[in-house]
């Protein structure tokens, strides 16, 4: 019932129809389906185990509703997330403007959350260059500015999808390891001190 243990929460943000669900579907099931889907009942939450070096990390991938009417609630979703994949449609300039909105929100309210910009539907550009609605260099500059990673993906062909999630997992391992190291430097075992349930006493 309760599902597997999850190490890190990864939240997917982005306007409606930019392809958040397809991205997850491609990553988890290695497929891109146009017609009726067969086996899954929902792709809103997925737990996926990824190998990073000799460690296995379980990412809990949270899909979110992109419609503007739920914008006010998006903060509830990304609370406590270790990574956010902010998606935009490469053929739709307005979707990138919305992506900036989420980046701002994340930077304001969720400092510890790493941001990954993800342009979707890159296969449409292969077919027709003129359909590009978001300039690559503009986004790259923006990504540098906000210290985010940038990926241009296609859920249809699978381009850069695995790389994106692999990077998310690797960063998670790297940064939590770093955090643990810095915590240990303090040299105080907080777990012993903070427990009021073990009555300690000076008599022995």
């Amino acid at each position, binding site marked *: *019932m*309760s599902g597997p*243990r999850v190490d890190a929460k990864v939240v997917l943000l982005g306007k409606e129809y930019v392809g958040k669900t397809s991205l997850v579907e491609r990553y988890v099931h290695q497929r891109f389906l146009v017609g009726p889907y067969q086996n899954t009942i929902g792709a809103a939450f997925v737990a996926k185990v990824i190998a990073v070096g000799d460690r296995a990390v379980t990412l809990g991938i949270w899909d979110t*509703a992109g419609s503007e009417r*739920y914008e006010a*609630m998006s903060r509830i979703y990304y609370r406590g997330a270790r990574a956010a994949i902010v998606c935009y449609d490469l053929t739709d300039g307005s979707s990138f403007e919305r992506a900036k909105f989420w980046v701002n929100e994340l930077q304001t309210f969720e400092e510890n959350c790493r941001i990954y910009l993800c342009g979707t539907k890159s296969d449409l550009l292969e077919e027709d260059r003129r359909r590009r609605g978001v300039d690559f260099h503009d986004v790259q500059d923006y990504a540098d500015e906000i210290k985010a990673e940038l990926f241009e993906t296609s859920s249809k062909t699978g381009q850069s999808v695995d790389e994106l999630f692999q990077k998310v997992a690797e960063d998670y391992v790297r940064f939590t390891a770093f955090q643990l190291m810095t915590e240990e430097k303090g040299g105080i075992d907080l777990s012993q001190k903070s427990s009021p349930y073990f009555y300690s*006493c000076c008599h022995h």
Partner: protein
Amino acid sequence: MYFYLKHVKGDLSAPRRSRRKKMSLKSERRGIHVDQSELLCKKGCGYYGNPAWQGFCSKCWREEYHKARQKQIQEDWELAERLQREEEEAFASSHSTQGAQSLTFSKFEEKKTNEKTRKVTTVKKFFSASSRTGAKKVAQEKNLKQGQLGRERNADNILRDLKEIFTPSWELASPTEAEIQEAKAPSPSINRQASIETDRVSKEFIEFLKTYHKPGQDIYKQCKMFLEAMHHKRELSIEEQSECAQDFYQNVAEKLQTRWKVSPERVEKAMDQIEKYIMTRLYKYVFCPETTDDEKKDLVVQKRIRALHWVTPQMLCVPVNEDIPEVSDMVVKAITDIIEMDSKRVPRDKLACITKCSKHIFNAIKITKNEPASADDFLPTLIYIVLKGNPPRLQSNIQYITRFCNPSRLMTGEDGYYFTNLCCAVAFIEKLDAQSLNLSQEDFDRYMSGQTSPKKQESENWSPDVCLGVKQMYKNLDLLSQLNERQERIVSEAKKLERDLIDWTDGITKEVQDIVEKYPLEIKPKNQALAAIDSENVENDKLPPPLQPQVYAG
């Protein structure tokens, strides 16, 4: 057996009363001045005591506490085992003919009379003992009886009663506490069921811990201590209590991992059981506590959802077609699950209800759309389900889960995901306005005030396979509203007529009055008039010229 226990204890004591009794007995027995006992160690070792250590000095407290704890742990195990035995017996005898919860009436009666007689005898014994020999003797009797514990049931009962009087509250085992509390609360049948559940959970917990061997015992000890600590923290704000619980989860998990080297999977399992055990016991003190405004918020949300009864799936863009029987079946199941959440006591069970509800929603969407649901489909549908179901005490449940659920589960896992969605749904419902339903402000206001319902306009283009009765009902509703309209028109016309009539009479009256004022009717006395004519015209010179007498004369 414990029915009886509860009963006696309920009679004897609201805990406050018993505590007072305990105090007076204690001072009598020891003969120590009350004010001094507050300063010195109660054991009389000469050191100063401390209220935090129940009036003992640190050393004596440690000894006392250690002893009491050991004893209590052992007794708990014994009690649990005994309960299990009895439960099984009772189950075997009652279940063969009846459902698990309902005993036949005669059996119930039998049990009740048993309770009564036993109660009478023990109470008698108790009083005779205390009146004859005084408190000290009872204390001795307690020690004496202790040897027979487990062999003689009645003795055990007295012992428990006495224990409650004599032992400091920190020494009381929490199952007993729970039972006392349960006996205190208003509805006996619910309590009985609740206490059955509490006992069942304890039993399962102990069974479960046996598989953990030594760490299991340690877990049990820690849980007991935590429950005691929480018992004393009942006055604190709910946020502080929540923090204690969260700290406790964290400490236990860490200890299991670092000291006992339990594998993460088994830690996870143990944590689930620990949560179940402690939250079953704490539930009634920390769920929707009086110190918070949770209840008020519940009512607000409930009222709000009621006011929004007119919201249709179309307005929310819900991708669910309830005309498909399978789908409407899923919708009903989802609603049942979300309503059921309130009946669970453990945060994790509540979460499981939300998850189950969500799975049904996913199924409904999948059948309708023929593709897996994304969050864009899921959230509106969940909102719709919440609006349709109006689950009881929604806010309290959300608060309770947030405060007392094991945080690792809540923040990251699948259950957490669905819970977050539910929080969003509630937040959306609270803030919902015309814009979020793509309605004009006028329409929204009209629907909110109940003047019209958007459903009425739709009744025409309903699909043919809708239930006939429902169709007829809507037709009738239409007719009724038409009739209502006509009636209103008639009433307003009638009022207008009435107004017109009143205006007309008023008008006539006014006209008449005007004329009367304009042409006042002056009736002069007859004689005088004649006299005036006949008299000499004294005032002739004042008259206007046409009335000069000369004219007549001429």
